[in-house]
């Protein structure tokens, strides 16, 4: 089959690879009908996540048709022919983390748990197409994909919603929603969202759905800010104005009640000085993050407010504003999304027309053109917001 693979730093390549087969009894093989490129893939391609190998099949946002099931798959839950959206964290459904709905912390799905434990103190769940630290699972930017614990995670789509309407239930819609949910939003809240990428856009929509009074989008890409504005959100271009002062202006000097970091470890910065500091530290690997958005969110947040982090961080960061965080009673919440927790309720929001995930799709390309898709998305060319790939 054809699959998009990691081919070293800054390079992806669609290659011929073997078709997947059942390795565990509760596996299914899914024929992929739609898959997408995510900001998390950029961290892998840019070389900021360790343990990638040449030839790793990428992709953790995908859906399709079940074409084979292992002998252990409960036929009451999943059968050949089912149309499914697959959540990106691989989770067993039986461990203490899964029982607590902390699906992305599943204790059994990562065969490389030992490696993850060394980096993170405790292991994390397996994730499709997302380095060997999270298990070394081939991803879904491919014609077929093996899905472990197939009777636990995958969501069956039984209505006639299009792929485009439900595909993002695999990751970015639940992720944006979790970012907003972690803010415990009150009706008077001003919520500021750093990053107007696809994840940020869904965090904004979710914040509004959860009742925020005002939602503010912060980014530097005019077309991405325009997209947020068209969806009804207020915008700040951090290359044009000082973010903190503008936020103070918009909140009567209080600062946003809730702040969401939807940028992660590769943020860019208006201040060339601090940016250079973090670039150098990242390059010599003594720091793995460039956490400008996170620092700014913490400094901007109202005292007693919440900073919710859904942008991905992978290792260690410098100059964490611990003083602001501690002295001003901030709450910091975060996590890889527990996607399985949100799929069903969010499907209902889509069916009711309260959320329209299709609004972020700007490009649909054949899988064969994955490298071009990565280029467009990474370099913000052709007003690219979200790329869907068709195998």
């Amino acid at each position, binding site marked *: 089959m054809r699959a998009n693979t990691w081919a070293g730093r800054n390079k992806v390549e669609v290659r011929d690879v073997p078709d997947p087969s059942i390795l565990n009894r*509760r596996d299914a093989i899914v024929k992929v009908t739609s898959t997408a490129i995510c900001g998390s893939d950029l961290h892998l391609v840019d070389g900021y996540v360790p343990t990638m190998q040449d030839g790793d099949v990428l992709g953790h946002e995908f859906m399709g048709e079940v074409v084979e099931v292992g002998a252990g798959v409960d036929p009451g839950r999943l059968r050949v022919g089912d149309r499914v959206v697959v959540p990106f964290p691989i989770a067993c459904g039986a461990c203490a983390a899964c029982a607590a709905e902390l699906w992305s912390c599943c204790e*059994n799905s990562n065969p490389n748990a030992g490696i993850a434990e060394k980096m993170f103190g405790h292991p994390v769940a397996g994730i499709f197409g997302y380095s060997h630290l999270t298990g*070394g699972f081939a991803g879904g930017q491919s014609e077929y994909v093996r899905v472990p614990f197939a009777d636990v995670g995958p969501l069956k789509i039984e209505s006639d919603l299009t792929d485009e309407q439900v595909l993002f239930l695999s990751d970015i819609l639940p992720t944006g929603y979790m970012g907003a949910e972690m803010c415990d939003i009150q009706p008077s809240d001003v919520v500021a969202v750093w990053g107007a990428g696809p994840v940020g856009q869904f965090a904004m929509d979710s914040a509004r759905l959860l009742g925020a009074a005002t939602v503010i989008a912060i980014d530097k890409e005019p077309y991405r800010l325009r997209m947020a504005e068209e969806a009804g959100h207020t915008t700040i271009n951090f290359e044009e104005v000082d973010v903190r002062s503008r936020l103070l202006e918009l909140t009567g000097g209080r600062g946003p009640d809730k702040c969401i970091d939807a940028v992660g470890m590769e943020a860019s910065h208006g201040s060339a000085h601090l940016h250079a500091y973090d670039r150098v530290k990242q390059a010599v690997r003594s720091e793995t993050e460039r956490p400008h958005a996170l620092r700014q969110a913490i400094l901007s947040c109202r005292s007693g407010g919440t900073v919710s982090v859904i942008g991905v961080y992978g290792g260690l960061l410098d100059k964490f504003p611990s003083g602001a965080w501690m002295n001003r009673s901030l709450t910091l919440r975060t996590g890889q999304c527990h996607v399985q927790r949100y799929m069903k309720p969010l499907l209902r929001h889509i069916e009711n027309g309260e959320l329209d995930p299709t609004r972020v799709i700007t490009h649909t390309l054949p899988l064969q053109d994955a490298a071009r898709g990565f280029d467009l998305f990474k370099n913000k060319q052709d007003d690219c917001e979200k790329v869907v790939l068709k195998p």
Partner: protein
Amino acid sequence: MDLLATTTIRRPVSDVYAFWRRLENLPTFMAHLEEVRVTGERTSHWTASAPFDRSVEWDAEITDEVPDERIGWRSTGEADVPNTGKVWFVPAPDGVSTEVHVLLVYDIPGGKLGQAVARYFGEEPHQQLDDDLRRLKQVMETGEVMRSDGAPWGKRARREFPQRPAQPLSSDELAKGEAA
């Protein structure tokens, strides 16, 4: 050499105890064991893979046994690497899980064999027992040892690195892996 490791398994003590007490089950999750054959009520014969494709065998007897609480054993006769082990099971505070604590003690001989054994365990001898218990947890909670394309061979993935790319296996690779 003393190795101590612990895990928590979301199954009642009686299940975990019973699984371990059927000593034939140990090779399903302990990387170095090839076979444990029960020879009597308290005696058994163990085969482990050893460096240089050799295997090492020894007889063992259970020396201490309290149902749903603990099992202790030791090698008997002329074992190449005399060893003792004990496992104890403690109900976890959540009321549904079991804490499993394992202590293995190897009496590593001098000479070539001793050196080979030391090399086999590597710089982090604990890692292997930690991984053994992770696999025990996988088997008890999900029914089998978890595999991925990068680490497809379950407990035979002795060192987690280097691994193969996260890419489906060819039928040749699959056949070779199943046969090994």
